[in-house]
């Protein structure tokens, strides 16, 4: 009888241990490399590499709130940079083509962020949990703040008279890329690039008439430094999308080709990142990690007084675009 009771007790104990183990996994910080402890990406790149004054103050607050050392902050900034350059590794495997490419891609992104997360965990030790909470709260607040800020800015600009009218300019998040030339930008409309390079054979006949007057350029203005770069050639496609001519409304003579339910002037990547539009993905189904509406070469960014790799919100005047 005693033996039976002993065995029963042992079984109960083993079961309890199993249950506790499972509960702590689902309720606590996630241990699996495939899951994201922040439910989204860490946004370290956005936090540490955006030149915006509010975000720079957020970084200071992070250091103060969690009493992080200068070295820890430097390492987090470095990881923010890595966030943008770790996706490329992948297997060259015939079977990959048969899978859902975007799903596979997004799994790789998750793996990348899980690796960064591991480094953050080691770096911050016991402060890691607080850091996760801080980032989560900050990102929720930042999204809300940024959407209101954008609306306010647009409204204020609309109220101004003359050249600052928003009829043909938008405030969008600018990232940096390595261009084909030093002085160029990328916008998410492939036909602007095609027209600028004279690739007429690849522009559909129905669309070609709207793109018949190249070269197409844009003016970029950075309010923080009061610097502009004028008539910059659109030489590449992106960020993220290639059919998001967001400076055209759905009912314009050259109508917006995709995401027609978005407001005029709102890039899809911005809506995806800040509002979860299209499940936070681009037109190819890839996760969007920056709310970007324009890509600048380092030279264009430098003329605006943005440091290398630094991003921020800039005004882009689209009056020359189809």
């Amino acid at each position, binding site marked *: 009888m005693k033996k039976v009771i002993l065995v029963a007790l042992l079984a109960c104990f083993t079961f309890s241990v199993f249950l506790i183990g499972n509960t702590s996994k689902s309720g606590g910080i996630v241990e699996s490399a495939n899951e994201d402890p922040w439910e989204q990406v860490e946004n370290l790149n956005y936090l540490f590499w955006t030149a915006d004054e509010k975000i720079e103050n957020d970084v200071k607050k992070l250091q103060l709130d969690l009493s992080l050392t200068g070295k820890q902050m430097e390492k987090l900034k470095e990881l923010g940079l890595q966030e*943008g*350059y*770790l*996706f*490329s*590794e*992948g*297997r*060259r*495997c*015939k079977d*990959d*083509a048969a*899978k859902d*490419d*975007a799903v*596979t*891609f997004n799994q790789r*992104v998750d793996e990348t962020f899980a690796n960064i997360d591991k480094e953050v965990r080691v770096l911050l030790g016991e402060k890691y949990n607080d850091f996760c909470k801080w980032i989560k709260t900050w990102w929720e607040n930042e999204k809300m703040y940024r959407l209101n800020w954008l609306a306010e800015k647009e409204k204020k600009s609309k109220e101004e008279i003359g050249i600052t009218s928003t009829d043909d300019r938008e405030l969008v998040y600018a*990232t940096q*890329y*390595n261009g*084909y030339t030093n002085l160029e930008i*990328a916008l*998410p409309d*492939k036909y602007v*690039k095609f027209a600028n*390079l*004279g*690739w*007429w*054979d*690849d522009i559909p006949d129905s669309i070609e008439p709207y793109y018949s007057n190249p070269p197409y350029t844009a003016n970029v203005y950075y309010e923080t430094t009061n610097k502009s770069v004028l008539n910059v050639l659109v030489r*590449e*496609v*992106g*960020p*993220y*999308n*290639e059919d998001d001519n967001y400076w055209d409304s759905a009912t314009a003579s050259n109508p917006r080709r995709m995401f027609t339910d978005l407001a005029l002037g709102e890039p899809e*990547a911005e809506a995806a990142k800040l509002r979860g539009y299209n499940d936070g993905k*681009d037109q*190819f189904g*890839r996760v*969007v*990690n*920056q709310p*970007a509406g324009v*890509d600048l070469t380092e030279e264009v960014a430098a003329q605006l007084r943005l440091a290398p790799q630094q991003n921020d919100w800039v005004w882009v005047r689209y009056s020359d675009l189809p």
Partner: protein
Amino acid sequence: MIYRKFLHVILILSILLTVSGCKQNSSNVPWVEVNINLDEAKTLQSEVDNGHRVGEIDPVQVAHEFLNRKLNIPGDTKRKEIKAGEGEKGYRLTPSSDGRMVEVILFQPVRTDSTGIWVVKKYRFIEGK
């Protein structure tokens, strides 16, 4: 008499052979291999994965860029898809600027799915210069 006829036949055959021999057979034109730096390709893939240089995942744009930038043939180009190996894309490009016709074969050096960048693996001029 028979000897003269025989000579004529030989002459005509020679002329025909010479003419057909001069006409370029594209399958005989050797390909020029392009050196691919895998590290550079990985870096570019990384940039593309982060939303930049979206044109790199479109083999058509990559083929055009190759013509524009590497072969210095700018402008409008007629494009026709040609046979290529598994996982490759092939195009015959006929620029409107001159009589040259170029064939290019592309492949994906880093990832073989729709998010992978394309690069030109080899090319050849099959007409003109």
